[in-house]
């Protein structure tokens, strides 16, 4: 049964004020179009969860969507700091921002525990790190078989997961390649799942390569077809990261005024991602790479 929706519909229907929202994608597949729609819809008091807040949460924090941040590395990858997040954490500007901090492993493991529906998972990580001192969610656990002392993190089940992918069918059967990050764990951890894709394909195409399917349709509440929906991040095989923008963001976000001006022009100032794309113009097409196709494999019997 078709789960196709517009971005407006999907965000208003499946993301509520006060929700815990995981918007994942490690450098790859960051759902910027969804974030911009949530900013336009003035969603408030969200607990935003990502390993790497990246520009997407820098923008949402600056726009006032967030009450709390759960993260493990808050920087502009390969460029510098996240100025809006830093202003919120250091000077409570524009508003105080609660936060909860892990390492990548720790936060990924919280998603995995929720996906598996166990209340915790054990790890050999964390010993000696001050993270355990400042984060009471990292607790010791004793192995009932060997008596070893390990550390553990609790499950984290977001109210909603927003995940970008290369393609899906109308039912939401979603295929991803390239870096997969924690996409699968988040999709199974969350109560509701919204998938945004570069293209909707026939179920026949999905069925021709079942090992490529990362999220089964019955786990998905809505599928949004939004080409270039991950810009300025990238989608393997579709377009590369707009690194110039990541570098430019350092300037834009350095003071609240220029950041506000950016939001006015590129988020509030456009109706949707299509208008955003028209405004970005040819620069988008220049991000398209040369095709590098894999060889088909045989699923016959």
């Amino acid at each position, binding site marked *: 049964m078709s789960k196709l929706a517009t971005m407006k519909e999907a965000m208003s229907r499946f993301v509520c004020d006060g929700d815990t929202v995981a918007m994942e994608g*490690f*450098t*790859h597949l960051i759902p910027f179009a969804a974030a911009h729609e949530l900013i336009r819809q003035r969603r408030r008091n969200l607990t935003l969860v990502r*390993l*790497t807040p990246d520009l997407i949460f820098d923008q949402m924090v600056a726009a006032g969507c967030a009450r709390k941040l759960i*993260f*493990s*590395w*808050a*920087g502009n*990858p*390969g460029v510098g*700091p*996240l100025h809006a997040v*830093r202003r919120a*954490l*250091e000077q409570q500007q524009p508003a105080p921002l609660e936060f909860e*901090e*892990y*390492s*990548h*492993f*720790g936060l*990924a*493991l919280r*998603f*995995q525990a929720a996906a598996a529906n166990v209340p915790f998972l054990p*790890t*050999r*990580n*964390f*010993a*000696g*790190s*001050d*993270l355990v001192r*400042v984060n009471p969610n990292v607790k010791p656990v004793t192995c009932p078989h060997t008596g*070893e*002392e390990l550390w553990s993190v609790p499950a984290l089940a977001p109210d909603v997961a927003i995940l970008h992918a290369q393609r899906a069918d109308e039912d939401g059967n979603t295929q991803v*390649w*390239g*870096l*997969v*990050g*924690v*996409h*699968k*764990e988040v999709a199974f951890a969350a109560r509701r799942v919204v998938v945004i894709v570069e293209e909707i394909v026939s179920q026949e195409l999905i069925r021709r390569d079942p090992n490529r399917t990362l999220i089964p349709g019955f786990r998905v509440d809505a599928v949004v077809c939004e080409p270039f929906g991950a810009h300025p991040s*990238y989608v*393997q095989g579709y377009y*590369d*990261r707009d*690194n110039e923008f990541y570098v430019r963001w350092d300037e834009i976000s350095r003071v609240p005024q220029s950041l506000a001006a950016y939001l006015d022009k590129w988020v509030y100032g456009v109706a949707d991602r299509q208008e955003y794309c028209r405004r970005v113009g040819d620069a988008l097409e220049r991000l398209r*790479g040369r095709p*590098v196709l894999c060889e088909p494999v045989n699923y016959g019997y």
Partner: protein
Amino acid sequence: MPDFTTQEVMVTTAARMLRDGEVVFVGIGIPNLAVNLARRTRCPNLVLIYESGAIGARPSRLPLSIGDSVLVTGALGVCSMPETFQYYLQRGLIDVGFLGGAQVDRFGNLNTTVIGDYHRPKARLPGSGGACEIAALARRVLIVMNHKLRSFPERVDFITSPGYLDGGNARQRLGLPGGGPAAVITDLGVLRFAPDTREMVLESLHPGATLEQVQENTGWKLHVASPLRTTESPTDEELHVLREELIPPGGAR
């Protein structure tokens, strides 16, 4: 003046600390250059893994981040991040991890979290990312940083990534599986850790650097190896690979 840059010395010095066939957790910048230099010279069988999940990457240009698309095209494999951390790092399959940070202290503990108090920070830094688990779980860690007084306090403001903690056998007492930091490569020299106390010891100075410079930029009375050696200069072959293959003229840095 030597005909090579300080960065080139740092890269070649780091590259020489790798052994052929090792599995290396790579970052961007100097570690990326060092690993790729080693692979093209003494260590053809080095396996590169990025915490993003790219395995055996063969980047056609210098990656701009550890999640860069060029790390996937033509890679040997891709795995999810829970797999990277559990099946590779925690499983003990990573021989070498590269780390840096805003602060490193006399026992090799690293801080990438905050300057000042955690709850009222003077400066809020990015945080751990994968650094805490690399420090805890990699068989050995190579630290690459610029040598500045503010970066080398006697004690870091926050231990994001455990080195030897309070020194001695503190790591073993806490049951940390990884071996801890093997060396610190700075823009002035190379430091290692004393086998017993696990305190940092200046082992060599880069060509042109002085002991005074190092001590002035270190926040505690630094132990110095005797004899204090001079770091070996990059060879012509290393410089050639570095300049012609890894950083093609006009190529991204």
